[in-house]
C-alpha cells in the first residue's frame, strides 16, 4: 500500500513538474478575439507540446491583476496582452522584455503590421516590446436599410439639399443624426459613461472637427474653437438626439440600443460589427454596416485607433515558451484563422487575404479605417489623462460646465502630466 502511494506521489510529482515546465500562462480580457485564440490552442499543443492556460477576466480587473505580477521578480504570467493605455506606463516602469533580439533571430517580419499599430502597441522609442494582437479602432456603425429607404431619401433631400448616402463628411453625418431622430428612433446612441467609454468616443468627435490632442512637441492642441465645437456636438447628440440615459451608458448598453433597432448610428469599437450580425444578440441582422468615422473632408478619416499587443514581461517564469506561443499566434496561418472567425486583424496581409475578404466584405472598410485613424496620446500617464478627460467631458455633457471651461481644465492637467513624464519641456 505504502509502496503504491509512493509511486503514485512520485508519478504525480513528475507529471506536475513536467506540466509546469511546459505551460504558458496568459492573462487576457473576455472579448471575442480572446475566444478565437482559445479555439486554436489545441493546434498549438499538438505542434509544440506546450500547454496554454488562458486566464480570462473583465477589463476592469486586468490592470489590478497584472501590476503585482509585473512588479514581482518572478510573476505567474509567461506572456501578457497590453492595452495601448498601459504601454507608456509598462515600458517606463521597465516591466516588459525587449523583443528585438528574438525578432532578428527568428527572422520575424514586423513590416506586415499596419504601421500605425506598430506605433501604438509595438515599438516604443525604437525598441520593439510588443507584437500587435488585435485592433479595436472605432468606426461608425450605421443603418444602411434606413439610408436605402425611398421615403427617407426624398425627405432628406428636401430638407437638406443633398442626397442621403453613407456620410462623406462629419457635417453630413451630423445632419443625418438630426434627420433620423423621429418617430421613437434616435439619430445616434452614445457611450457617455466615464472615464474610458466617453473619452474614447469623444476623441472621434475631436478628430472629426480637424483637431488632434497634441503636436509633435506634445503641446496640447485641443483647447480651441474646434475642440469646443466637438464637445458641444457630443453633448447635443447625447441630450437631444440620443436615448434617455446615454450619458451613463457603457458600450454594452449603447450596443443593445443599436442592436434593438432603436438608433440610426453608433460610433464604437469595430469588433461590434461582427456582433451586430449575430441573431442571438441583434434584431437588425444584415441592416447595419461599418465605415471609418467621417472627417472634416471626404479624404480625412476621424476614427480613433486602439489595439492590444502581445508582450513578454520581465517577470515571466518561462519567456522562451512564451515567445514560441507569440510566434505561433502571430504567424500568418494562425492570424488568418483568427480573422476568419471574426477577429480584428492587425496585419496588412490578413486584411488583403482573398478568403478573409470573401467572408467579411467589410474587411477593406476596416483597413481603410485603420489607415486613416488617429492615435490617442500614449505616454506614462495615459490612464490619468483618460480619467481627467472622462470627468470633464461628463461634466460638460451634464451641463455643469461650459465646453471651453472643461477643455481648459483638461489642458491644464494634460500639460502637468506631459511635463511630469518629460514629454513636454
Amino acid at each position, binding site marked *: 500500500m505504502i509502496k503504491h502511494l509512493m509511486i503514485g506521489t512520485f508519478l504525480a510529482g513528475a507529471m506536475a513538474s513536467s506540466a509546469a515546465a511546459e505551460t504558458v500562462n496568459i492573462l487576457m480580457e473576455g472579448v471575442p478575439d480572446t475566444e478565437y485564440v482559445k479555439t486554436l490552442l489545441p493546434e498549438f499543443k499538438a505542434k509544440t507540446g506546450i500547454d496554454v492556460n488562458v486566464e480570462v477576466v473583465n477589463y476592469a480587473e486586468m490592470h489590478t491583476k497584472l*501590476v503585482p505580477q509585473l*512588479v514581482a521578480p518572478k510573476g505567474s504570467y509567461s506572456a501578457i496582452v497590453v492595452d495601448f493605455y498601459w504601454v507608456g506606463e509598462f515600458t517606463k516602469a521597465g516591466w516588459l522584455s525587449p523583443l528585438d533580439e528574438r525578432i532578428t533571430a527568428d527572422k520575424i517580419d514586423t513590416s506586415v503590421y499596419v504601421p500605425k499599430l506598430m506605433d501604438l502597441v509595438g515599438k516604443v522609442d525604437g525598441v520593439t516590446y510588443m507584437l500587435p494582437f488585435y485592433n479595436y479602432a472605432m468606426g461608425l456603425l450605421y443603418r444602411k436599410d434606413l439610408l436605402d429607404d425611398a421615403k427617407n431619401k426624398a425627405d432628406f433631400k428636401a430638407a437638406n439639399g443633398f442626397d442621403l448616402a453613407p456620410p462623406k463628411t462629419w457635417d453630413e453625418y451630423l445632419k443625418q443624426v438630426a434627420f433620423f431622430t423621429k418617430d421613437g428612433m434616435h439619430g445616434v446612441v452614445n457611450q*457617455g459613461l466615464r472615464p474610458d467609454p466617453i473619452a474614447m468616443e469623444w476623441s472621434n468627435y475631436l478628430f472629426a472637427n480637424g483637431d488632434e490632442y497634441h503636436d509633435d512637441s506634445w503641446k496640447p492642441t485641443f483647447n480651441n474653437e474646434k475642440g469646443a465645437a466637438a464637445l458641444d456636438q457630443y453633448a447635443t447628440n447625447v441630450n437631444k438626439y440620443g436615448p*434617455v440615459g*446615454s450619458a451613463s451608458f457603457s458600450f454594452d448598453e449603447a450596443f443593445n440600443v443599436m442592436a434593438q433597432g432603436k438608433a440610426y448610428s453608433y460610433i464604437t469599437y469595430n469588433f461590434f460589427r461582427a456582433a451586430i450580425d449575430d441573431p442571438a444578440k441583434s434584431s437588425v441582422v444584415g441592416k447595419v454596416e461599418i465605415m471609418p468615422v467621417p472627417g472634416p473632408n471626404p479624404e480625412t478619416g476621424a476614427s480613433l485607433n486602439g489595439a492590444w499587443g502581445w508582450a513578454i514581461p520581465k517577470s515571466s517564469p518561462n519567456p522562451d515558451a512564451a515567445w514560441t506561443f507569440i510566434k505561433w499566434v502571430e504567424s500568418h496561418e494562425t492570424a488568418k484563422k483568427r480573422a476568419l472567425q471574426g477577429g480584428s486583424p492587425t496585419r496588412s496581409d490578413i486584411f488583403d487575404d482573398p478568403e478573409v475578404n470573401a467572408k467579411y466584405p467589410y474587411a477593406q472598410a476596416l483597413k481603410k479605417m485603420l489607415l486613416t485613424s488617429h492615435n490617442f496620446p500614449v505616454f506614462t500617464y495615459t490612464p490619468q489623462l483618460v480619467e481627467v478627460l472622462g470627468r470633464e467631458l*461628463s461634466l460638460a455633457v451634464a451641463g*455643469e460646465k461650459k465646453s471651453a471651461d472643461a477643455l481648459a481644465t483638461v489642458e491644464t492637467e494634460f500639460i502637468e502630466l506631459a511635463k511630469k513624464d518629460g514629454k513636454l519641456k
Partner: protein
Amino acid sequence: MARTEIDRADARFGWMMAAPALATLFFVILFPVLWALFTSVHDYTLINPHFDNYSGLANFRRAITDPEFRHSLGLTAFFVVAVVVLEFLLGFLVALMLNTVQRMKPVYYGILLCPLLMNPVVVGLIWRMFLHPSLGIVNYLLGVVGVAPVNWLGSTKVALWTIIMVDIWHQVSFMVVLLLAGLSALPREPYEAARVDGANALQSFWHITLPLMLPIIVVTLLIRLIFAVRTYDLIYIMTRGGPGVATDLVSYFIYRTAFVSLNIGEASAMAIVLMGIVLLLTAFLHRYMRSLT
C-alpha cells in the same frame, strides 16, 4: 499585593495563549495601517515603488487642497447621512412590525435576508439592468401607469439618489436584523406595567422601547455608518463616479488615485484622512453609548 511566582507563571501562560491571536491581529490589521502611514509620507508610486524619497506632509497637503477630493468627501458625508438615516427609519419600522408577528416569521426573515446575502457587484449589475432608461423594467412599469421615463443614472440630479435607493434596498435588512434582535431581547415587564397604568402603544414606544433600545440603535448606526463610508462597489459598477462628478464617493476616488494614477503615497494620505474622520466619529458615538449605560 506582591505577585507570586504562580501569578507570574499564569501571566506568562496567558500571554503565550494570546500570542497567536495578537500576532495575527498585528499582521492583518495594524501592519497594513502602519504601512499606509509610512507610505503616506513618501513619494511612492507604482512606477517607482521605492521608499527613497521622504516627502513629509506633502501628500496630505496635496490631498486636502485638492478640490476633487474635498468634493468627494462632502458628497460621501451626504450619502452616508442619507443612507444611514433612511435605512434606520425604514429598518426600525419593519423591525417593530416584525416583532409583533407570530406566524411565518422565518419566511419574512428569509425574504428580507435575500438582498443582504448578495454580493454588491451583483446588486449593482442587476439594478443597472433594471434601471436602463429605455430597455429596463423599472421605466417600463412606470410607463404602464403613464409616468415619463426617468433618467436614473444619467442625470446629475437623480444619480446619487438612485445609488442611495439601491443601497437602501441592499442594506436595510441589516438594520432590520440587528434592531429586531434588540427588540426581541427587551424585557416584557415594563410593557405590562405600562399597560396596567393605561399607557397606549405610542406612549409605550416612546417611554419604554426607545430608551431601552438606544444602546442597540447607536451600535447599529455606528456599524452601518462605517460600512457606508466604504461604499465603493455600487459606484464602480453603476456610475463610475458620474455623470460629471455627481456620485464620486471618496472610496472610489481613493481607489482611482492608487490604481489609475498609481500614486500610492497620495492615496494612502487620503485613506489616512478618511480613517481619521471615521475614528473621530466612532470615538464620539462610542463615548455617547457608554454614557447611556
